[in-house]
């Protein structure tokens, strides 16, 4: 669900966060799948340059999760790494990186997921989470939910409980879709800049 529908309606922090996100047309390539004008890439690097807005982003997630007995924050490579650790540190949870194949050095479990063309895999160290641990999974953006679904599968294969998936940005596909693979989805903002081009 979107933060504005879940207690943060009118929160000026959400507007600041949205304004700090840059839209880059036609990245990584021109495509007419999502709109007449091509892919409008939501670039969060500009959010990271805006200390206040970046802090607001982390603060909102920390306020939400700090009293939910979360012991694991899992972040999806690579942009999930930019948000997850700060949340983990503030709520006293472990940070678990979920990585592309071949990056993690120890014994791993992996789960495949669909891309626009073909598929990819997401890996996690086998000893990273324990059964019954309460987990949140972080990424910068959720589109189809394929990557997050793979992440949920990894957690559940270890007996951990995914309490929620959390993203800064949620594409229109997920609006109204409160659950991903049966798990709640919490999103701060919708994509910036779409209205200018439609």
């Amino acid at each position, binding site marked *: 669900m979107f933060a504005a529908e879940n207690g943060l309606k009118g929160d000026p922090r959400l507007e600041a966060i949205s304004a700090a996100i840059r839209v880059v047309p036609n990245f*990584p390539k021109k495509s007419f799948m999502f709109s007449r004008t091509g892919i409008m890439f939501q670039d969060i*690097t500009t959010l*990271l340059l805006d*200390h206040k807005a970046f802090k607001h982003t982390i603060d909102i997630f920390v*306020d939400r999760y700090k009293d939910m007995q979360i012991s694991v924050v899992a972040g999806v490579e*690579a942009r999930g790494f930019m948000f997850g650790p700060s949340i983990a540190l503030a709520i006293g949870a*472990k*940070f678990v990186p979920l990585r592309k194949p071949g990056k993690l050095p120890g014994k791993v479990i992996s789960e495949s997921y669909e891309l626009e063309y073909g598929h990819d895999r997401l890996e996690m160290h086998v000893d990273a989470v324990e059964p019954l641990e309460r987990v949140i999974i972080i990424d910068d953006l959720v589109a189809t939910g394929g990557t997050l679904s793979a992440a949920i599968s990894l957690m559940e294969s270890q007996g951990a409980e995914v309490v929620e998936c959390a993203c800064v940005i949620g594409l229109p596909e997920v609006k109204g879709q409160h659950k991903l693979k049966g798990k709640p989805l919490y999103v701060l903002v919708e994509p910036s800049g779409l209205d200018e081009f439609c």
Partner: protein
Amino acid sequence: MQSIVSSHHLCFAPPPPPPVLGHRLICHSLPSIRLPSHRSPTSLRLFSCAAESEMAAAAKEDGQDLRIPKIASSIRVIPDFPKPGIMFQDITTLLLDTEAFKDTIDIFVERYKGKGISVVAGVEARGFIFGPPIALAIGAKFVPMRKPKKLPGKVISEEYSLEYGTDKIEMHVGAVEPGERAIIIDDLIATGGTLAAAIRLLERVGVKIVECACVIELPELNGREKLGEAPLFILVTSDAA
């Protein structure tokens, strides 16, 4: 339902009271902390430390920061990864140790807070894990330095040598401005090639590198030499193989 709370301070620990006598620079001779699986004798290494807070002072005994051995012991060494003969320093186990991870960030934050550093640059991908918490705590921006074709906007790039061939790192144009003061973060320095490229990239746009900071150094690989004028601050050293 969540209600809006008033502004939330990003705190990793209760903020230390300001030191009564003002900040002072303290240099300690510390034995380098060797990771458990290596047998070389310890060598003396000079670490310069930043202004002391009362919390950091409490953690010190005989000049040694007691947080450091705990950080060192939380790092897992994995033999023969990514190839035979390499002893891989796995920081993922540090990230699973909430106290060790918090201490790691605290040490860097204590060192860099209040020094006019406006940029924390982090090298993909493990630099992305350590950099942002530091940036947030010291009031700086975080700038990711990425492998080619990952950043969506206009970029500048710098090439560097690998064992076989070359690679590039990239940064967004406009992420930093001339005259800004930066630190560069990565989990580990080995040959120093990546960090040296990051330094060149930032210096090309007029940024001053205050320091490079890594959790781990592999001193046998002489990475320090590649960094030129830029100082290097590390927490833990280890053998390369």
